[in-house]
């Protein structure tokens, strides 16, 4: 079987099927035809099956080392290990686009299958939108970035996978990120459908909430793993460089986070309809913008794919998406306008609005900083940079305000909060925060004002959030010494969305704890001969000896280092400087001793024939808390997920006492 030809054909048929999905579904909505609607749904499922088959063919070609395909020859070699042969599927532009399409198909298929009955009116238009998105991506895969392109002459071996991508993190990180990006296609398509139908009540987002929360959760995990990958593999001692591609992944996360908060206001109070639709439209458009930026060759970054015309084709697609989505929003503007208004600036609604203001300001800043160099170059031809100092200077203060709001917001009640009750609830958090600052400054001698403030604020927010759990659990406490725990389990399981959200907030606090550790990082760099040592932040690090060996795929050269603390050996690290044979690229593997208090991070930059090494070393306090915090955030979203959907809705409805009767609005004049 000629895999190249078969694959190409499968992709072309999938493209036709996606086009039919889009057209038939649009016609079904137009002509109110059930038959066409069923046909379009079947076409969507067929598209999914075809795309899965195409991806399976490419994976087969990769495993059978079919170097007659340019993609296989470009991203794998005979010595590529089995796991990374699979990850080669998304290592290059062509494969990654096919993979992106595959995941979009999975999201679209599950959403349409689940919602075509419950949201009959919206599902038709949403299917058409999803079909159009799939048709665009399949068009790219078929005509612009064909992973089944043959190569002639057929090389005896492939050039192998970039060694930087050969990491377990890189095996999962793109998958999670793509799951996150593409997942927003579901709420996006239903938002468009709601605009088209003029049905802008809460239905479109409560029905798609599962997909939104899940996509957000994947995106969170994907960004965190990307940071972990940068930390473990790139060897520059940090985890976030405000690199354009990192920024591109952060943008939809920021607007998506804003959306998850502001929909609560619409759900509870019927306000912010325009804003919510706008946010989710922006979120998916930003996800596409990110894909465009990484594939256009406009930006230089370690993450970007090679320059190609494919990226340029995103621009018209993005333009059509933005213009039509926001055009629809403008068209429906009057209908969406809320006839309610804030009763006070001290209420939960206002807190969510401030949260949204801060998140969108951060999103704007990140977007602005990312595209500003492109704009300047386009208009004046000058090459300038916008680097980490810009982002840190603007984003960190806003982020701190946002963290403070995370603590205060949940304590304020809906409609009209009371200062007196807020003051009472803030007492313990404020004491906790101040005590933390005093202990750190007086007890541990911390002098950095920024770090003191950050850590104090983290403690404040943690105390405020934990206070919510305590207050909630008290109401459900049973007897006996297990009572409080039973109460906690009871209150969380009864109100999973709310307490899941608080668990996410606790994860954010842990991440902030980890981030404030960067204020205390210490570095060392220099050369060492075997037997020499240096000390850094209480560690004494001795270079014992060089060592080298070779495998089928690389020549490994390492420095054996003994790490002592207070005279005791705490670790033996072997930072490496390797030469990958297939690509002839050198690559560093770090030596890392990680603990909850600090990380010792060693990078071998050079090793010469006499055995003398050039090294850089970092002691990064508290970094491990960032990964823990991200895990807690994902855990929180799982709790939220378990409370969303038919089951969760019943939980929510099961406490009518919490909602005074006057707040249950009975729609008047609506049939």
């Amino acid at each position, binding site marked *: 079987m000629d895999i190249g030809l078969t694959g190409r054909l499968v992709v072309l048929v999938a493209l036709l099927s996606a086009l039919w999905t889009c057209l038939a579904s649009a016609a079904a909505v137009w002509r109110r035809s059930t038959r066409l609607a069923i046909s379009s749904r079947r076409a969507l499922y067929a598209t999914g099956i075809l795309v899965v088959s195409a991806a399976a063919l490419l994976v087969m070609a990769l495993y059978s080392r079919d170097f007659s395909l340019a993609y296989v020859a470009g991203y794998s070699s005979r010595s590529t290990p089995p796991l990374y042969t699979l990850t080669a599927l998304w290592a290059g532009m062509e494969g990654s686009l096919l993979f992106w399409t595959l995941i979009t198909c999975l999201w679209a298929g599950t959403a349409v299958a689940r919602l075509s009955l419950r949201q009959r009116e919206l599902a038709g238009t949403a299917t058409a939108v999803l079909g159009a998105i799939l048709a665009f991506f399949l068009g790219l895969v078929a005509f612009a970035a064909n992973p089944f392109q043959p190569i002639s002459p057929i090389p005896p071996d492939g050039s192998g996978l970039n060694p930087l991508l050969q990491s377990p993190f890189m095996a999962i990180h793109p998958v999670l990120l793509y799951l996150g990006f593409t997942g927003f296609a579901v709420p996006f398509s239903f938002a468009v459908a709601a605009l088209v139908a003029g049905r802008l009540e809460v239905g479109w987002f409560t029905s798609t909430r599962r997909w939104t929360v899940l996509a957000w959760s994947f995106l969170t995990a994907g960004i965190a793993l990307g940071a972990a990958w940068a930390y473990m593999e790139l060897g520059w001692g940090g985890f976030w460089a405000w690199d354009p591609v990192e920024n591109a992944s952060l943008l939809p996360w920021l607007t998506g986070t804003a959306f998850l908060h502001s929909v609560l206001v619409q759900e509870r109070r019927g306000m912010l309809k325009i804003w919510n639709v706008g946010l989710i439209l922006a979120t998916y458009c930003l996800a596409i913008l990110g894909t465009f930026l990484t594939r256009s060759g406009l930006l230089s970054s370690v993450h970007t794919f090679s320059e190609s015309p494919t990226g340029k084709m995103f621009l018209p697609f993005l333009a059509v998406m933005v213009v039509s989505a926001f055009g629809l929003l403008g068209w429906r503007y009057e209908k969406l306008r809320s006839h309610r*208004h804030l009763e006070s600036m001290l209420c939960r609604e206002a807190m969510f609005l*401030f949260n949204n203001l801060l998140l969108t*300001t951060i999103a704007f800043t990140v977007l602005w900083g990312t595209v500003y160099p492109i704009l300047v170059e386009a208009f004046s031809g*000058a090459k300038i*940079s916008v680097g980490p100092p810009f982002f*840190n*200077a603007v984003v960190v203060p806003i982020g701190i305000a946002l963290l403070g709001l995370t603590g205060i917001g949940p304590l304020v009640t809906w409609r009209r909060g009371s200062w007196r009750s807020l003051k009472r609830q803030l007492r313990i958090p404020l004491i906790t925060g101040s005590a933390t600052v005093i202990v750190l400054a007086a007890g541990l001698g911390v002098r950095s004002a920024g770090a003191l403030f950050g850590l104090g604020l983290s403690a404040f927010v943690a105390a405020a959030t934990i206070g919510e759990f305590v207050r909630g659990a008290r109401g459900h406490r049973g007897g006996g010494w297990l009572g409080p725990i039973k109460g906690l389990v009871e209150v969380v399981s009864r109100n999973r969305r709310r307490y899941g959200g608080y668990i996410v907030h606790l994860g954010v606090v842990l991440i902030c704890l980890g981030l404030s550790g960067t204020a205390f990082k210490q*570095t060392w760099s220099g050369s060492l001969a075997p037997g020499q040592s240096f000390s850094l932040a209480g560690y004494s690090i001795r270079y014992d000896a060089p060592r080298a060996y070779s495998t089928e795929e690389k020549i490994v050269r390492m420095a054996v280092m003994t790490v002592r603390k207070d005279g005791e050996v705490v670790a033996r690290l072997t930072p490496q400087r390797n030469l990958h044979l297939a690509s002839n690229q050198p690559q560093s593997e770090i030596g890392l001793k990680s603990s909850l208090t600090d990380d010792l991070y060693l*990078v071998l930059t050079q090793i010469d024939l006499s055995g003398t090494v*050039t090294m850089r070393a970092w002691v990064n306090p508290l970094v491990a808390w960032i990964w823990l915090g991200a895990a807690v955030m994902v855990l929180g979203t799982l709790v939220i997920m378990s409370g969303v959907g038919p089951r969760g809705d019943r939980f929510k409805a099961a406490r009518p006492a919490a909602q005074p009767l006057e707040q249950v609005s009975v729609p008047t004049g609506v049939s």
Partner: protein
Amino acid sequence: MKVWPIAAAAGLGALIAALAISSGPDPNSVPTPEAVAGRIMSPFCPGLTLEECPSQQAAELRNQIEAKVRSGATNREIDEWVVANYGESAMARPRESMAWLAPAVAAGLGLLALLYLPRRRPSPEPQGAPPEISESDRARIRRDMTEFLRGANE
């Protein structure tokens, strides 16, 4: 129209701008080598600052900067030397005010919208009394509500 939302918005914009500007180096003081390396994009690794760049050439450039600092060069002198050798794109902190102004303006406008728009008096759609509900509709609503609450308590 009230004045205080405008004042608050302008205040927030000014605060962000001030924080951003105060984070910049004082042109006439002598910096630490780490501070300089932290605000120069490495010409040798895409997307990383000189402080972070692991390449050997970056280490040499760091050494050159350290020598300049030791000889007492000020922030301005060092920046000029870097720009002369590696171009404006080596400055990780953009030196044009446009770059810094935009986020401050956006935050200010956002706050203005937040303080002003949601409090705007509703447009005259819900005029007069809400439409009367007929007795049969009222009965239906009552029945549905009872059913709903019963279902919820199960």
